[in-house]
């Protein structure tokens, strides 16, 4: 168990380092010199040179990399060339928003998918079960932003029941915070819930065919009892993978929902950074996203170990 975790942790750290290099190298490809861009069209060469020195972009790439990467370790993302403000706090502020959005959405997804998927699997031979899995197929096919737009149309514009967008920080007004997140959560949650439902269903179906479920029934458990006691945890193993995958893609994927609902999340920050050619900012956001995904992978591995004694390798 410990060995397993240590191994995963080493992989996590190594991947982070490699990802750092990759991101840095990739960003080096961005056209334009930050100093020139910052100074605009008619800047004098001296002014540009001075600004380059101020930004530190006149140094060799390797030095820049280590400076940047070293800073990351201490939580220092540098200072934006464009907004001249430190990047770290911006990212953490946005990350918090996106995290709340994505986690909330996934909670809804799980709350929808686990019962729906299980039900669809158990009743896969009757119309209601088939209807649920058909519904989930349709849910998967709807782009998240379309779901968002429709939700806004129905609940905000027509019914005037909820705000159409905007984000109110929890610290400002918890009630408004909740209201402002209900629709974004729902649009993420329903679409992702549909995806998850499908996986829960097929995972439960697989488990239902397992011998040990038959054993449980031979002991005197009913169909559902056996599934509940022995099946769900086994079914959870592949579902956790999908959950991890979804979380990982949503961190950036939520940007479309952030757009629809005008939520100042991390994806939005990234797009702003790209639009403004804010190199360091983009680099920082990409790095945070990548590390977050790596971290999610790590957590998925840990979850496996927690769920499945075979992976703990103890004999």
């Amino acid at each position, binding site marked *: 168990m*410990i*060995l397993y975790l*240590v191994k995963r942790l080493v992989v996590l750290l190594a991947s982070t380092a490699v990802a750092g290099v990759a991101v840095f190298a990739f960003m080096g490809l961005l056209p334009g010199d930050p100093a020139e861009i910052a100074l605009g069209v008619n800047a004098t060469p001296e002014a540009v040179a001075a600004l380059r020195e101020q930004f530190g972009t006149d140094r060799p790439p390797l030095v820049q990399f280590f400076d940047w990467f070293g800073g990351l370790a201490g939580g220092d993302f540098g200072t934006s060339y464009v907004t001249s403000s430190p990047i770290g706090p911006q990212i953490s502020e946005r990350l918090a928003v996106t995290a709340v959005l994505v986690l909330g959405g996934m909670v809804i997804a799980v709350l929808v998918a686990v019962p729906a998927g299980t039900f669809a699997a158990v009743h896969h031979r009757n119309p209601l079960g088939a209807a649920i899995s058909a519904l989930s197929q349709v849910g998967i096919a709807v782009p998240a932003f379309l779901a968002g737009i429709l939700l806004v149309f129905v609940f905000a514009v027509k019914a005037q029941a909820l705000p159409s967008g905007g984000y109110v920080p929890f610290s400002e007004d918890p009630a408004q915070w909740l209201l402002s997140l209900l629709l974004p959560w729902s649009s993420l949650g329903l679409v992702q819930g549909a995806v998850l439902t499908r996986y829960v269903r097929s995972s439960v179906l697989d488990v239902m065919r397992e011998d040990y479920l038959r054993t449980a029934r031979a002991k005197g458990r009913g169909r559902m009892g056996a599934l509940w006691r022995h099946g769900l945890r086994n079914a959870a193993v592949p579902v956790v993978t999908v959950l991890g995958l979804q979380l990982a893609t949503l961190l950036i994927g939520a940007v479309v929902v952030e757009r629809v609902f005008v939520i100042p999340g991390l994806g939005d920050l990234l797009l702003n950074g790209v639009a403004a050619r804010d190199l360091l900012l983009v680099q920082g956001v990409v790095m945070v996203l990548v590390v977050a995904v790596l971290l999610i992978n790590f957590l998925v591995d840990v979850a496996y170990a927690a769920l499945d004694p075979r992976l703990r*390798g*103890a*004999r």
Partner: protein
Amino acid sequence: MATPAGTPVIEARDLTRVYRRPRTSLTKPGEAVHALKGVSLTVMRGERYGIVGESGSGKSTLLRLLCGLDRPTGGSIRFAGQEIAGRRDLRFLRDDLQIVFQDPMSSLDPRMKVRDIVAEPLVALGRPIGGRVAELLEEVGLPASAADRYPHQFSGGQRQRIAIARALAPRPKVLVADEPVSALDVSVRGQILNLLADLIDAHGLTLVFVSHDLSVVRHVCESVAVMSEGEIVERGAVDTVWATPAHPYTRTLLQAVPTLEGLL
């Protein structure tokens, strides 16, 4: 086919094979599994050599080594006088030694037609195929029309015939069989064993036959080696071992097998 009996075909000396399990703890290295602990055996030309032992005793490992599919951790294997352990170019071995596996379900590629399955060793060895496939199918008692079908269209016994046809394709001198009848119905088992016996006689094959069932080995082979925990604990003429087992393990083995004769 004239095969001078009395010359060794396979000579294995002090074979060891250690598998390392992945480590499970930070401090200790992964557990070592000694699948073979110094196995020596000699198979003579034309001999039918049986290997019996329980699951995990190292039979399959030994076979893999003999067939050049795996490398021993230590020891030497000579095939027709040439060393094969650790050698890369094993063409001489492939030409002369072929193998039949236990499970006819999984030993035939489900995506290949029987024709291609049977011809595979010839293709791999760059030999002409010609009418060989039909010839082989006939020899194992299958209609020529079988060539254009897929393995799943055959029963277990038929599939095992296809596997035998494949093994015979390059006209090997040695046939290695890993539990070839364990997965078959009793009613079919006899057919396959009879077929094997006929083919061995017809082609003067040397046979290495692995089984967990001493009575099957007794029917097929003249010599036998009994394996337990990676070692050969007893060897000799089958009838001798059957009648007067020397090693306690062999005795256990013999007593464990229920036989109709003994019970009725």
